[in-house]
């Protein structure tokens, strides 16, 4: 086909004019502007067209006379030369020619590709038909629109007819396409009606009779009809997001292709707004290629969900274009001034009016339509911290529902899902299982008004991550609680339990009472401070000092206390509970011994803090130890306690005096942390 076209084109007369030269006169025939028009259909009236064809005939004949005198204008200067016309060479064919051939070829390929893939689909068939018709109107146009001066009138008429028939057939196919895709609106056989009507128009065009501009108005009405069908399809696909997404892309790309062609090339001339189209028709044909490539993607539903996102932007861009064009047309009408000036003004207005408007639209459309996590933090944390897994599952579903508003409640998914992903061409979104919950499948985003998009995936990934983070901190908190509970029960067992047990098994009633009192005191300490693993030495010693001196005072024993030299306002080193508890028990035991056995009047108590140990000395002025070997219960308790803490206990005569007893205990300090500074 392309070959045939090129062959015909090469048989047309050609003069070796310098590049950029505009012929003004051939032989003795002065050329008018009309003679050089690219698309004679733009002349409108059939009489004018017939006259034009006759002129082409005359000119073509003149160009067959060798040599021929030609006057041309180059850089506003007229030159007259005598040249010998010859048939065109391959190299003489301008770029615009090959461009139109190319447009036709591309359309043909895409049409064949889509038809091959979906042979049984009427939508695809109609699509292929539109694609097939593109070369029918581009290739003849390629010949006559890139002619140098003139071609044979009859040939011109034939090519023009072919072009018109192709364009009308294209329109019929477009109507067919939108009547069958995505849903058949009626049986394909009803398409014979528009085919017949526009067939009649084509016949009138060939016969050059009937109303003016039949083809132009025909294609315009076809476009309008296709648009109406598109709108109908749109309304019918209300609850079918996949169809709707495909359709949105479809209508968009068809409109883009056809309306750009008609709007920029055909309509201004048909409606009498301008002498020429804004873009030469040959190049404007490329808009059909845009359309076909886009449609092919849509028909194949190739990642429609991806296209869906972009189609919004393109819609907005397109509406901007239309606005600019409309403004331009209005301004041309109003100002009757230079087209480029008014285009500039249109752009200016678009800048002030349209772009802010577009921004607003963009925000409205994109925000409302895309899922977002903002403001959901409380809900996410609430879900992760749900008291039971069932509750958590319920809250998770509510959360997903609120974010994506799927048509149906989230379904539990049986198959494992590693990461969020789209399924069924974006109809559903798979959310991986979080925190032991089953994965979820969401279907029909935003009550079925849209498809799930990659931005939903991103939101889902963030959601899962945030939930996992919250759940993880909850788990570590729970682990901490369990650890703490274990420690408390161990402490109760080791201390209170041991004390109560020794009280129970103690034969002396007084010691029983002491042990029970100690248990109560320890319990109160626990209630006051909780089970701490570490205690500051300062406050512990202060309490011990008061307790000890009171006990001794009540027993009529005077007491002098020497504590470690802790800096004023500081609580001293922080020591492990075991050590503090051991120290307390040993001191209590030693004081009990003094009160019970020593018959003393004065007791010296000294506690000193070394780098490695705590030293305790309790010395009384009592009756001294009984006979060696008769060491009492209390003293062996002290020795045992000290030994349990890897310390040493010495019980013996008070040094330096003849009377009294002295208990010396050294407890090594382990696990000592830095001194805590009091507030």
């Amino acid at each position: 086909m392309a070959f045939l076209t090129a062959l015909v084109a090469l048989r047309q007369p050609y003069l070796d004019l310098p590049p950029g030269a505009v012929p003004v006169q051939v032989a003795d025939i002065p050329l008018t502007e009309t003679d050089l028009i690219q698309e004679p259909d733009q002349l409108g009236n059939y009489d004018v067209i017939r006259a034009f064809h006759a002129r082409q005939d005359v000119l073509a004949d003149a160009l067959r006379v060798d040599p021929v005198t030609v006057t041309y204008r180059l850089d506003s200067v007229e030159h007259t030369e005598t040249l010998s016309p010859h048939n065109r060479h391959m190299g003489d064919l301008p770029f615009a020619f090959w461009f139109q051939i190319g447009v036709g070829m591309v359309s043909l390929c895409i049409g064949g590709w889509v038809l091959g893939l979906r042979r049984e689909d009427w939508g695809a068939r109609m699509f292929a038909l539109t694609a097939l018709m593109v070369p029918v109107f581009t290739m003849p146009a390629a010949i006559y629109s890139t002619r140098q001066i003139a071609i044979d009138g009859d040939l011109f008429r034939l090519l023009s007819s072919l072009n018109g028939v192709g364009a009308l057939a294209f329109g019929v196919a477009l109507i067919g396409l939108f009547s069958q895709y995505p849903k058949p609106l009626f049986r394909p056989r009803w398409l014979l009606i528009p085919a017949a009507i526009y067939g009649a128009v084509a016949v009138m065009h060939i016969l050059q009779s009937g109303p003016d501009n039949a083809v132009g108005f025909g294609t315009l009405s076809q476009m309008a009809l296709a648009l109406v069908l598109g709108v109908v399809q749109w309304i019918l696909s209300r609850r079918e997001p996949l169809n709707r997404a495909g359709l949105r892309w479809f209508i968009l790309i068809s409109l883009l292709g056809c309306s750009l062609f008609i709007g920029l090339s055909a309509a201004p001339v048909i409606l009498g707004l301008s002498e020429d189209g804004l873009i030469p028709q040959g190049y404007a044909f490329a808009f059909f290629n845009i359309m076909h490539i886009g449609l092919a993607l849509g028909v194949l539903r190739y990642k429609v969900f991806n296209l869906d996102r972009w189609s919004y932007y393109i819609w907005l861009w397109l509406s901007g274009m239309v606005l600019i064009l409309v403004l331009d047309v209005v301004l041309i009408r109003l100002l009757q001034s230079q087209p480029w000036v008014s285009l500039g003004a249109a752009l200016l207005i678009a800048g002030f009016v349209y772009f802010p408007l577009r921004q607003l639209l963009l925000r409205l459309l994109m925000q409302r339509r895309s899922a977002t996590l903002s403001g959901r933090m409380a809900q996410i944390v609430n879900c992760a911290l749900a008291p039971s897994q069932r509750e958590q599952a319920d809250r998770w579903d509510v959360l997903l529902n609120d974010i994506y508003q799927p048509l149906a409640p989230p379904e539990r998914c049986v198959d494992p899902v590693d990461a969020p992903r789209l399924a069924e061409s974006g109809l559903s979104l798979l959310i991986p299982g979080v925190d032991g919950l089953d994965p979820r499948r969401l279907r029909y985003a935003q009550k079925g008004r849209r498809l799930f998009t990659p931005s939903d995936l991103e939101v889902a990934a963030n959601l899962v991550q945030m939930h996992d983070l919250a759940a993880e901190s909850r788990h570590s908190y729970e682990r901490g609680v369990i650890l703490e509970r274990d420690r408390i029960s161990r402490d109760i067992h080791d201390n209170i339990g041991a004390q109560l047990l020794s009280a129970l098994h103690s034969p002396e009633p007084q010691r029983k009472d002491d042990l029970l009192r100690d248990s109560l005191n320890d319990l109160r300490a626990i209630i006051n401070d909780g089970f701490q693993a570490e205690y500051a030495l300062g406050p512990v010693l202060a309490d011990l000092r008061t307790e000890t001196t009171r006990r001794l005072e009540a027993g009529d024993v005077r007491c002098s206390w020497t504590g470690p030299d802790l800096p004023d306002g500081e609580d001293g080193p922080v020591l492990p509970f075991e050590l503090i508890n051991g120290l307390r028990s040993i001191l209590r035991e030693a004081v009990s011994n003094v009160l019970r056995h020593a018959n003393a009047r004065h007791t010296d108590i000294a506690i000193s803090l070394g780098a490695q140990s705590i030293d305790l000395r309790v010395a009384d002025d009592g009756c001294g130890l009984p006979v060696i070997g008769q060491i009492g219960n209390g003293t062996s308790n002290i020795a045992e306690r000290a030994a349990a803490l890897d310390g040493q206990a010495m019980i013996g005569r008070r040094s330096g005096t003849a009377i009294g007893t002295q208990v010396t205990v050294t407890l090594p300090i382990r696990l000592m942390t830095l001194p805590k500074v009091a507030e």
Partner: protein
Amino acid sequence: MIERVLILEDIRQSREFLAAIVARILNAPEIAKEATLRGAEHACGRYRFDLALVDLSLPDGDGTTLLRKLTAEQPDCICVVTTVMATDSTIVGALAAGAQGYLLKSDPEQLLEHHLRLLMDGVPPLSPQIARRIMQHFQLTGPTHEATSTLTKRETEVLRLIARGLRVAEAAEALGLAESTVITHIKAVYRKLEISNRAEAALHASRLGLLSGDSAD
């Protein structure tokens, strides 16, 4: 002269134990023994008491309620908290509610008697733990109150020494004061605790708009 004593204590053995001590020290006054808050409140409606030993955690409520009632209705009654497991902050709370002192029921009988006697002589008890807690209390609430409810330098010093385990006599020696002066300071601390508590209550009340009628008058 102590003529009538109220003992509010829910554990019977402890109640009898305390009653025995009171009878011995105070020369057998009339003792009303109550096991519940309601019973004690009822008794307060019928008699005037000179001394009340009040346990804090009771089956039907908090002993602090009775302390407030007694402070308001029988200001001459000496109120003493008797506790075994109450936290320091609860005890400070009871002191702020009007108690003049507290006794630990787990102390040996001898020690309890000793403390009770001191209390009757007007020497309030003050353990290092409670002293620390009171210091904390004034650190936290101090700046918001007027001078009458903040501690003087001397009072703070006394508290600090007591908190380090010094007895009243030792603290007096360390500060170069008479023992009676130190006791006066401790009493002042107790009083300020109560005042600060009242001031706080008044502040809350005015915040809630409960006192707006008064200020309008």
